[in-house]
């Protein structure tokens, strides 16, 4: 079980909470369970969500493991110039 923190706007889409406890071993499983438990998040996942694990931001490595005691923070998937 990992605790996941959602940024403000995503929290609203998840029903008004900004923290969720999810049983997930990696980012792929996290997204799958988020969509199952909170269908309102599916469009956000489709548009792109980045996952910060202990401050390091992952945009595409969905196989990245989620350590039990890590800080997991969801962020908009951004791009640069």
């Amino acid at each position: 079980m990992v605790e996941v923190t959602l940024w403000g706007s995503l929290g609203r889409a998840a029903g008004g909470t900004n923290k969720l406890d999810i049983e997930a071993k990696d980012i792929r499983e996290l997204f799958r369970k988020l969509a199952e438990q909170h269908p309102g998040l599916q469009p956000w996942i489709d548009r792109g969500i980045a996952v910060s694990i202990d401050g390091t931001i992952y945009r595409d490595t969905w196989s990245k493991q989620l350590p039990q005691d890590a800080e997991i923070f969801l962020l908009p998937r951004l791009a640069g110039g």
Partner: protein
Amino acid sequence: MNFDPRYSTRNFTAVGTRPIRPDGIDKVTGRARYGADFNMAGQLVGRILRSPHAHAKIKKIDTSKAEKLPGVKAVITAADLPDHTNGDAAMYDILDNCMARKKALYDGHAVAAVAAIDARTARQALKLIEVDYEVLAHVTDVDEAMKHGAPLINDAVFTEGLEEKPVKPSNVTKRSQFGHGDVHAGFGHADFVVERSFRTEQTHQGYIEPHACVASANADGTADLWVCTQGHFVYRQHCAQLLGMDASKLRVTSSEIGGGFGGKTHVWAEPVALALSRKAGRPVKLVMTRDEVFRASGPTSATSIDVRIGARKDGTITAAEATLRYSCGPYAGSWAEVGAMTSFACYRLENVKTVGYEVLVNRPKTAAYRAPSAPMAAFAVESAIDELAKMVGMDPVDFRIKNAAQEGTRSSYGPVYGPIGIGPTLEAVKNHPHMKAPLGKNQGRGMACGFWFNFGGQTCTDLNIGMDGSVSLAVGTIDVGGSRASLSLIAAEELGIAYEHVKAVVADTSSLGYNDMTDGSRGTFSTSMATISAARNAIRTLRERAAQMWDISVDDVAWEHGHAVARGEKHGNLGKLSLKEIAAASGTTGGPIAGHSELVADGAGVSFATHICDIEVDPETGATRVLRYTVVQDAGKAVHPTYVEGQYQGGAAQGIGWALNEEYIYGKDGRLQNAGFLDYRIPVCSDLPMIDTQILEIPNPNHPYGVRGVGETSIVPPLAAIANALSNAAGVRMTHIPMSPPRVLAALEAAREG
């Protein structure tokens, strides 16, 4: 992918040196081939007809007269670009931006295009196209567009992110919010509070090379595109989707690039050129004029930002908040969201809140520009921070050091930071000789900090070892700042051979797997990771071949300094085998030797910079001159220090232009008034001092050599550093960018009048 990207210390041989770039001679002798330098037999000239109206319904387009003009081979409108986007809203916006479908949404929006035998005929044909417009009310100002009763740009837009679902459409596409703590309580603990509103005007990336391409659609459904771009694989994806093609049937070859800075991450004219070629049955060259580049390719957002920051007497910031309104052009974007995330990222804050609003206006579709959205937010925040330091009575550098984020700090955008470099850049600035240099009359010094995320992405690289032992490196990320040299250094380092024996090329889209574009400061970060991976795969093969040549187990073969070395007492009489010797024997040991890599480079690591600026103000005219400028930034590891310095200098130079001169000026009719370099003034060499740089190297733990991105952060601090310098030189706080002579003079006169 089975590659461990973690950093480990090592003594570098090639990395960190400054060899001459492989593309340098061609560029200084004029031999380098840019977008407009490619030609094909039978090629036609493409030209685009653009709306003169900021907002207008397209009632009818009659192309019949143009089609009858001798020499015209094709005329297209949106009807020739049917919608293949399958509900993908972002792609539909790109399609509509390339060719207006129902409404022209800004001055310069494409409405039709022609392909003709020469430029004169093409221009004549454009004049023969009759467009029946119904002109609509328009809005180009970001604050005006948010007002009740403002002309609606898209009546299907309902603001996302509000507590309650809106019942009326709006020009605000999205509200986003970040932060933590309780800002109301935090301001209650403040002894001093600064509250100000700021504006920044829209700027263009100002790349010297305009958008240019040659498109050739073939009768068998395949096509070729030669184009100036920051991401040819992304252009292939977008063009193929917009034209209803298989991506594999479109081969895109990138030219040299005369500047992009984010503006060449987006297709503008390329799908139009392909559609013209498909209809004409001949290749079509399409080169934008400078007027078109300004009116119809990606500028930044114009912004309106409110900032409030409070601090105790001891200099501790107790609360910070900002409301950021960013223009998106006529299509939805996430520009304010990024501004809201980056605005307070440099600081350790218990109570912080930022809110962003994305605003539609009748201006060109906003595109990325080097750390997109961050410079405007930093201008507002760093100006207020400087003012607050003065109120508290602290030195601005010490004030920032006291409040700087560090490892373990919860960032203003959410996560807790790992090891970061804001503190070291501030300490370096505090101790820099520039800070102690004397100043003269009407001169002032300012400093400011900046933050950018940096990104990685999908990357694919091939490394081929020739039979003579030389190495060809094929990469899929566009070289915008010397990356072919940097990546050759990386390959040389890993293989243990000389830089001169490596030749890097940017491969076309049919020769290599998909690569994300060169954006987000990712080029060297990502592709160096893939190059290291490819080289290590090649080394495994080299060891296997050496083992064959010696007839021993590969487990007994190590790779050291460009040689296979047999390990163990029983092999003590075996000499080393060089890469060259192993390559020469490859024909009889299994064939060509190569290393391949495909990976997703994540973990780019956030980046910080601190800049110092000296400025002189002419109190009679409001004119300013930057006298001295210093950039201090963390590079992780500078692979080719000269090109790292070049990125620092380039970002600072562009930031200086943004701060002092550059702005889109719209008339009341919604038309752009200054679509050219005479009236939109970017800085030239004689406007700038030598920009000094100091590279800090705090290794990125998520890259084998510790590399971070360096390309974008350097444009973040200049707006505020210059505003702070100007405030110290002339005693006026400038809140509107650019700080052009008329604005500075008006501020000086207002101050004199009290």
